């Protein structure tokens, strides 16, 4: 079994940058998943939480948390957003491991993410806390 990065990464480890540009087909899938009669008309804009989710998927992959045998619990989430993002607008996410500790055999990790547009201007931040169990190393 390959040792997942979560087992060895130290605080300050950087991830990305990830291209988290959301194309129209994924925006439509989001609407199908979340939407209802009361949902707002976003027009050509996105719910920013979708950009956060896209970055989180990339992070989980890079941390090795899709590895067989690991069980990951998404424990907490922080999000702040500066402005709306358009469908197809280029957004790049960079992340940093802000905490990584082991208690009773479980990893507790927090990853802080910054989102920037094509001009390099920050458009949002997020922080994700995860608990990972089932490591053999």
């Amino acid at each position, binding site marked *: 079994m390959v040792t997942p990065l979560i087992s060895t990464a130290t605080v300050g480890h950087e991830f990305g940058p990830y291209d988290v540009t959301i194309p129209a*087909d*994924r*925006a439509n*899938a*989001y609407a*199908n*998943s*979340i*939407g*209802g009669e*009361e*949902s*707002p008309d976003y027009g050509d*804009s996105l*719910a*920013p*939480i*979708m950009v*956060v*989710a*896209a970055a*989180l*998927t*990339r992070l*989980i992959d890079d941390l090795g948390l*899709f590895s067989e045998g690991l*069980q990951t*619990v*998404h*424990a*907490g*989430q*922080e*999000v*702040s*957003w*500066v*402005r*709306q993002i358009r469908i197809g607008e280029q957004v790049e996410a960079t992340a940093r491991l802000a905490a990584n500790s082991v208690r009773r055999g479980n990893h507790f990790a927090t990853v802080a993410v910054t989102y920037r547009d094509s001009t390099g201007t920050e458009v949002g931040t997020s922080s994700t806390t995860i608990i990972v169990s089932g490591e053999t190393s």
Partner: protein
Amino acid sequence: MSSGGTQRAVGDSLTGFEREITQDRVDAYAEASGDHNPIHLDESYASTTQFGTRIAHGMLSLALVTEMLAIEFPSTWHSGGKLKVRFSAPVFPGETVVTYGEITAIDETEDGLSATYTIGCKKPDGTDAVVGRATVPLE
């Protein structure tokens, strides 16, 4: 404290909504987010996990909470809103969840008034799937 022209006050509730979390919605969320973890999609795999069956993405439940905030604050939630939540229980496909929010404080900031809400998403048995707080600039 009242928020003056915005006519909001501590104790005011957000208009929540119900949503049945069908497996179709979970599948669509996997397409949207790119998160195809089999714990959300593959019943035979999920049956071997601590949950014993498939669970919805936690971010799907959180997205419903943010949808409620976007409905209430169409021009400010996505431009200055903040939230901090914890995921306290899994949501299983077929369950109907209800979003909620209530103002706990209205504060004067450098950029004007902002409201702090307790927010969350409850499962059919009344337990929280997602719970936390959000801060939204008032229009």
